[in-house]
């Protein structure tokens, strides 16, 4: 990389990644290398600012430029991470709060940083606490995209999901089979992609 880089150039790249992620609606891989180089830039800037800050009189223009760069870089870093946590939260809700479902997806897991996995775990714990405030009648994790039109749904099994307790007793859902079951019993399996409505 050329040494004549402008202040804040790396941070712009980082924010650009967030932007791409929004536009393509994909969570990109956590860019550890870039985050580290920006943090290194921050330390260098801080070092450069120190002697300037000790000078008497009104702040030197150089100091103001550096401070501005520091502030901007920091905001870009935070924005990048917050953007990712927002996406993680959306993802979490999209699968109905099935955390193991997200974490067992190797491809997805590869894109997360270890801290982000921790974040998801802690978020999940907090949601579970919140959920327990509601009675069994109401599962706040269930889908809210389509209002229910029928009590029952005809579903096709896309992936094996083993024995599931339903209104009709226990059913072994095996790939390729079709069932007419109570929607409330299997809603979460549709959300997680085990079943498909026919």
């Amino acid at each position, binding site marked *: 990389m050329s040494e004549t880089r402008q202040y804040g150039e790396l941070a712009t790249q980082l924010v650009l990644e967030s932007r791409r992620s929004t536009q393509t609606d994909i969570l990109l891989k956590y860019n550890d290398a870039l*985050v580290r180089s920006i*943090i290194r830039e*921050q*330390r260098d800037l*801080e070092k450069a600012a120190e002697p300037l800050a000790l000078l008497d009189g009104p702040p030197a223009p150089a100091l103001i430029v550096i401070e501005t760069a*520091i*502030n901007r870089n*920091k*905001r870009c*870093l*935070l924005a990048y*991470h*917050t953007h990712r*946590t927002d996406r993680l*939260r959306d993802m979490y*809700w999209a699968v109905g709060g099935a955390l193991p479902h997200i974490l067992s997806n190797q491809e997805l897991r590869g894109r997360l*940083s270890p*801290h*982000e996995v*921790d*974040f998801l775990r*802690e*978020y999940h714990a*907090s*949601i579970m*606490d*919140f959920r327990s*405030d*509601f*009675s069994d*009648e*109401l*599962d*706040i994790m*269930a889908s*809210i995209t389509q*209002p*229910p*039109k*029928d*009590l029952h749904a005809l579903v096709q099994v896309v992936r094996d999901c083993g024995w599931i307790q339903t209104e009709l007793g226990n059913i072994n859902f095996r790939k390729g089979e079709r069932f007419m079951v109570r*929607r*409330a019993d299997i809603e979460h399996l549709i959300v997680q992609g085990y079943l498909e409505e026919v």
Partner: protein
Amino acid sequence: MNWDEEYDLIAAKGAAANHFIGRARNALPDDDDFEISPLPGPGPSAQPAAVPLGLLLPTEDETPLQQLIRHWTNERNCPDILPAQEELLVTILDHIRRQSQTVQLLREDASTSEDEHVRIMLAQTEMERVKFIVRSYIRTRHYKIDRYARFITTNAELQRRLTGGEREHASRYANILDRHLFKCVLQSLPPAQAHLDDTAAFVPSMITQPDKTRPVFVHALQDCPRVRLPDGTALEMRKGHISLVPYHVIENLVARGEVELV
């Protein structure tokens, strides 16, 4: 007055409309087919306890479900977090619980006829639909709470609008996010930069706040007092009037229930 009488009242007014909202608004009393057949054994009382409706209804002839739907659309369209409707939710959830118990009893009863089974199914479907609205309402609030968690922890007025559970989650989440950002970024920065509450000049605040200048569609439920628009002119809305205005202009009208957001 109990739910059945209330239903008769509405039916008499011919309020049933064909579209979803209209149907859902009239739905809750519909569920109350309590007199389908006598309950076997000493089950829970089939007749719901008479609810003192006077307590629930700010405006007459608005059922709890109609209120719920109003609060739900308001919440969904509002950039800010509105006061929690805990009492209303408790009423509705209790009602649903009583009904599912009744439905359970009737379904297990062999003497229930085919015709009644159809009616039970309708009642169950309607219950699922009401639950959907409750769920959507809670999740909408929850989404905003996550989004503004750090702002909520610093704002006492906003905290008063949340339920206990929501408040706890907000502070937990603000903590989780703080810690996450600290671990990812701040701890590696020089100490002078490792704060989350910078107030640098010309830079937006680090705490995400609800954007009250966002325009909303507002529908006047009654004649409203004059409000002042940002350009200085006044707007007086008559009953039924619909306009597009920045949220902060009509914030108080929403709080007093004189308008609804659509």
